[in-house]
């Protein structure tokens, strides 16, 4: 168990290091000077440029710069966002909770609904409804999230006017506790769109796993002992069948972190994903790098939590590298 945990930790550290290095490379190698992109190049004398570069340490060896960048990142300093005129860390801090709300809601929704549907499908394999919903699942897995988002915008938001078209709150609407229903109303469509493909994947995995345990000896033994069908499903079958779904939760979490960028853009959700895309358009490299760094940290942590949950749920995994 300890060896397996240590390995996961080492792997997570490796990912973080790789990401920090990639982000550093982006800021260093990106076209244009980090200071003069907004200025007219011709009015800046070479001496001024050299002075500025020296001031910010850009004349130092690359290794030294990298170490400094990494230590700054470790302290939560990601540099200066020129497109927003504030430190990157402030811009991120303002948007991270909004993205977390979206991702968290979607994650809970996807896994609770997805596993429930999949378990039901697997247990009632012969049922016509189970087959039909399985077909729907294939379609939902296959449609990219940005398409789902645009479709959700067209139907429920624009045509039927059930939900707001975008944003997080009604302008000049109630704030504080009184604004919570309004916030939830805005949250429904983006969270659902983000959750649906993940739920479909979770359902398919859960379905396969349930099929695998349906005829297992321990299920027959439980039935022979006279356990009720509900008890067989919840206490015996589901518990064993959850393992493959848990094993995939980490990868799904990383899909969520990628998907939220697109969903925020389509639904105008003022989170970190939209901030990142805006930064790409503005060539605000420190902000792009900061947002990517924070997202990947979130992914690493999410994946680790999922892996540890798996180790806890399935003792067989502990011995494996």
């Amino acid at each position, binding site marked *: 168990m300890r060896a397996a945990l240590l390995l996961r930790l080492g792997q997570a550290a490796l990912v973080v290091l790789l990401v920090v290095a990639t982000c550093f490379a982006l800021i260093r190698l990106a076209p244009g000077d980090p200071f003069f992109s907004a200025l007219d190049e011709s009015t800046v004398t070479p001496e001024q440029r050299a002075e500025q570069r020296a001031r910010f340490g850009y004349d130092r060896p690359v290794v030294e710069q990298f170490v400094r960048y990494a230590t700054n990142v470790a302290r939560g300093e990601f540099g200066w966002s020129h497109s927003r005129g504030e430190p990157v860390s402030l811009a991120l801090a303002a948007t991270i909770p909004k993205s977390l709300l979206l991702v968290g809601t979607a994650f809970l929704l996807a896994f609770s609904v997805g596993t429930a549907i999949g378990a039901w499908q697997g247990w009632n394999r012969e049922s016509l409804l189970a087959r039909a919903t399985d077909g729907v699942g*294939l379609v939902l897995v*296959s449609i990219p999230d940005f398409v789902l988002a645009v479709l959700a915008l*067209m139907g429920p938001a624009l045509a039927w006017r059930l939900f707001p078209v975008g944003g997080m709150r009604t302008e000049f609407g109630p704030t504080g506790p009184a604004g919570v229903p309004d916030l939830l109303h805005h949250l429904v469509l983006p969270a659902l769109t983000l959750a649906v493909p993940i739920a479909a994947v979770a359902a398919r995995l859960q379905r396969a796993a349930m099929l695998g345990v349906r005829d297992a000896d321990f299920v027959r033994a439980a039935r022979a002992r006279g356990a009720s069908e509900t008890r067989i499903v919840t206490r015996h079958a589901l518990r064993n069948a959850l393992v493959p779904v848990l094993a995939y939760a980490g990868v799904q979490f990383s899909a969520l972190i*990628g998907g939220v*960028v697109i969903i925020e853009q389509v639904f105008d959700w003022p989170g970190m994903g939209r901030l990142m895309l805006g930064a*790409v358009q503005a060539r605000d490299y420190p902000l*792009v*790098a900061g947002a990517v760094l924070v997202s990947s940290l979130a992914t*690493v942590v999410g994946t680790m939590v999922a892996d540890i949950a798996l180790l806890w749920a399935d003792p067989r995994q502990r011995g494996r590298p």
Partner: protein
Amino acid sequence: MGRSAAAGAPLTGRNPRVAIALLVLLVVVAIAAPWFAPSDPRAQPDLARIWEAPSATHLLGTDSAARDVLSRLLYGSRVTIGIATLAVLVSLTLGTLVGASAAVLRGVGDAVLMRITDAMLAFPRLLLVILVVAGTGDPGTFSLAILIGATGWMTTSRLVRQETRRLLATDHLRAARALGVPRRRLLTRHVLPGLAPTLAAAAVLSFAAAVPLETGLSFLGLGVRAPFPSWGNIIADADSRPLAHWWLVLFPTIAIALTVIAANVVAEGFARRAREDAASGGGA
């Protein structure tokens, strides 16, 4: 460690042949687009006729620059399918190299390669691509395909590693080794042909992932950019008023969905076949 990149269960009663036929048809359409398409996808014949709904002159309507959507869709299939295909080739090459090396090296080399694969797999692919696109500005079609391929080889390498290990343990390979067949020849003449079914399955899987990635990037304005057509940037053109300009959403959506569904059904077919082969005692 029990994580499967191929998400999903086998589905009974879906016919992979129909799906294969559909994919072949798509490729044919993509190649033959210049003969089919009613006009140049970049032509703006009459700027007074922007955002026209489908009609007899423009079967699928026009976009924000009065370009013919049918032509853009047909030429867009060239771009989207072409990028996905090139990306698949890159993924397959990298994945086979990493996976086969891991299987042959065993021990520390195997562990290092597979941990790198796991690490890459855990990282959101979209973010990685956005990071690189941000650094290069406008990457261009060819680089975009390479980039998509270079971030999608992990599934292939896992599948290839597993299959190579299985093959290396089979009787005929053990016999070949016992006969003194050199290692390189062993790999090229005995392992590689045996990998073909696995590679085909991996190719379809990475294709099914590459199409949404490219269209998504093009939708965000980070992939293929106007005036060049991609199924993704046609939809992006309707972004401000998707309901009023529904034809810009509907037709590319159908194209994307059909392509990815077909690829997924074919992948399922491969998976089912592999399972049946294993069950009938084909493998050691």
